[in-house]
């Protein structure tokens, strides 16, 4: 069955208001008291058995945060967040230390099964379903790190990765086991003082993933982290740090869901990528946090700082994101092109429906010589949503020969939504070449009528047109994700016409 049709089948099976991942898991959990203070920061650090330097780092961030104010420049509106009304730490109650999957609460394992994220390595080895109309894909393994509320519950394929020398573990473990690496790189791309939410994250982050790929190693499998918020009123503040040492390569995927809740939940993550000489990092996200209901109630506030540093010469960092969830998205995965001849890429599909607000884009900061960057952004607004692309491309005085190509396309479905493009371009030397293209279009009645005249239903027609619109970006995703993303796109646009 062609993917488009399969999408429509799925869409038909769910109600307009039903978010597929909106279930809650009942497990025993352990929470810190509500609110934020130095004591809470100490509590979190203590829970993780962190060394003193880590606690110190957190406390400095916390003190800094107290002096900061929330940014207001983004084109999003929401009631003031009461930061004392949030739980900053929630963890499934541990049954001592977890050394194998068998010791994890079966309810959590069931949750990941429901989400289609198999944590059992056996299941992973079964491979993926072949894409319709295609041969069996090469059976690929994906190592998964699952983060449930504030802690990482399972990391698969650890042994096999270890053989290759790749370190893939919860960051809380890395702080204890590889302090030299963490101390060297943590906060080196996104400093603790970077911005309100990143600083908050630095103070209270509870877990996340840590990856280190040693020199010359091509990571033997895709790495993946799956984030799930479960607890009520809980913020999720994960921290991801990926280091690709000289001449290495790693591809990392990230997915996220949350239960359906009336109140908003805060998610403020920080992701730092470091690529040394000749290294390459490919970072893909399919973000599907709960977007709120059809009246705009509930949903996740997704205030995320993601930044990659092409620290070495000839290094490369590529961000690919498919954003369909969250009530509010505030996210600008960026590249600092520090090394000479380094390159950065940003491929984005941002879809908003209902009352969702998206303010997303990227920053390409050209510092080294002959650096290049490429931005392909596809924004799709439906319902009563607002969708903004905000991007910065800048070339430093010494960044001679810098090149950027930007294409920002927006597609409007219906007449109650908005699409906005806010590009900032700065060239401080005359040898920089920046190109910017932008289009805004609507799915016209004529196109829809043409499709239905050929026998497609309205939903199939919208699915087809949108998938055509985002094709350039979908092609950048690893195949398993591309199929899933394609389905997600059609589901998020459900009920957007007629």
């Amino acid at each position: 069955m062609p993917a488009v049709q399969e999408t429509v089948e799925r869409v038909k099976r769910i109600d307009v208001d039903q978010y597929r991942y909106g279930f809650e898991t009942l497990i025993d959990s352990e929470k810190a008291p509500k609110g934020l203070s130095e004591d809470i920061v100490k509590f979190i650090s203590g829970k993780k058995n962190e060394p003193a330097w880590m606690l110190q780092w957190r406390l400095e961030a916390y003190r800094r945060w107290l002096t900061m104010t929330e940014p207001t420049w983004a084109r999003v509106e929401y009631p003031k967040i009461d930061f004392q009304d949030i739980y900053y730490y929630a963890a499934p109650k541990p049954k001592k230390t977890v050394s194998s999957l068998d010791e994890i609460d079966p309810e959590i394992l069931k949750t990941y099964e429901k989400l289609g994220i198999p944590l059992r390595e056996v299941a992973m080895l079964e491979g993926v379903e072949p894409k319709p109309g295609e041969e069996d894909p090469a059976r690929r393994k994906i190592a998964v790190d699952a983060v449930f509320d504030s802690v990482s519950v399972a990391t698969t394929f650890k042994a096999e990765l270890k053989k290759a020398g790749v370190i893939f573990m919860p960051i809380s473990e890395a702080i204890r086991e590889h302090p030299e690496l963490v101390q060297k790189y943590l906060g080196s791309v996104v400093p603790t003082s970077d911005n309100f939410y990143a600083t908050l994250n630095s103070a209270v982050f509870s877990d996340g993933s840590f990856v280190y790929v040693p020199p010359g190693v091509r990571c033997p499998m895709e790495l993946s982290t799956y984030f799930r918020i479960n607890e009520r009123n809980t913020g999720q503040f994960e921290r991801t740090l990926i280091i690709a040492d000289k001449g290495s390569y790693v591809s990392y995927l990230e997915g996220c869901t949350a239960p359906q809740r009336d109140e908003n939940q805060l998610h403020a993550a920080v992701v730092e990528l470091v690529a040394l000489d000749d290294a390459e990092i490919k970072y893909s996200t399919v973000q599907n946090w709960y977007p709120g209901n059809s009246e705009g109630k509930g949903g996740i506030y997704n205030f995320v700082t993601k930044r990659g540093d092409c620290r070495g010469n000839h290094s490369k960092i590529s961000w690919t994101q498919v954003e369909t969830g969250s009530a509010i998205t505030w996210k600008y995965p960026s590249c600092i092109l520090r090394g000479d001849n380094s390159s950065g890429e940003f491929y984005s599909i941002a879809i908003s429906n209902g009352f969702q607000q998206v303010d997303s884009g990227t920053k390409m900061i050209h510092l080294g010589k002959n650096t290049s960057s490429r931005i392909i952004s596809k924004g799709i607004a439906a319902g009563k949503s607002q969708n903004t692309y905000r991007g910065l491309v800048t070339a430093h005085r010494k960044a001679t020969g810098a090149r950027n190509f930007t294409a920002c396309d927006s597609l409007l479905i219906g007449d109650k939504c908005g699409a906005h493009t806010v590009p900032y371009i700065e060239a401080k030397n005359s040898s920089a070449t920046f190109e910017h293209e932008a289009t805004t279009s609507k799915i016209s009645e004529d196109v829809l009528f043409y499709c239905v005249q050929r026998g497609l239903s309205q939903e199939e027609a919208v699915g087809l047109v949108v998938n055509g619109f985002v094709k350039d970006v979908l092609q950048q995703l690893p195949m398993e994700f591309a199929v899933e993303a394609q389905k997600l796109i059609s589901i998020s646009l459900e009920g957007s016409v007629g």
Partner: protein
Amino acid sequence: MALLEVKDLKVRVEEREILHGLTLTVNEGEVHAIMGPNGSGKSTLSHVIAGKPGYEVTDGQILFKGEDLLEMDPEERAAKGVFLAFQYPVEIPGVATMNFLRTALNAQRKARGESEYSTPDFLKKVREVSKSLNIPQDMLKRGVNVGFSGGEKKRNEVLQMALFEPSLCILDEMDSGLDIDALRIAADGVNALRSPKRAMVVITHYQRLLNYIVPDFVHVMSKGRVVKSGDKQLALELEESGYTQFEDAA
């Protein structure tokens, strides 16, 4: 039973009546030409038969194979065998023509309770038909109508007509924007699809197209009505005398 029966059809667009009681009967195997000046309601008729939104039928009915066509969604009409070749086929970027053809064909077959085509069977069928229409394979890999010339767009319409095998083909101003060579290729494609089981309604301003697609009947429309019907001779007379003589008749 007639294939298509349009009875005393009245249609409004935004409070303005465009068709004032139009009647037309088309039987299987027949080719009807509908001619008339701009604004006479020719395209409105084709859109209403195909089910384009934005038209309000205030009176009359349209029966297709004895069924009430106006009760059906446009995609249902398509599955039942109504095909409209557009005057201005739309572009759909990023959607490969081949993918579009297969998705549409299988949607129609599914709606009729038929099995979907397998990929090899489908490819074989497309290759056969596109070859006869002089459509290169690489055109099928491009986005639907994206960067197609006027002639290629129209040939793509004929290709779909051949693939979907409809029982009623409505060709809306197929000759617009085509040079003589392109027109001949498209018309040859249409003629190859003439069959005792299939009817065609050819909408055009000019007699020229009817030299290539020779109709059994010619109807002249003016101000929202059919004001004269005859055989192919009528088209030739019109070429001589023009449409003005009918202005008063309407």
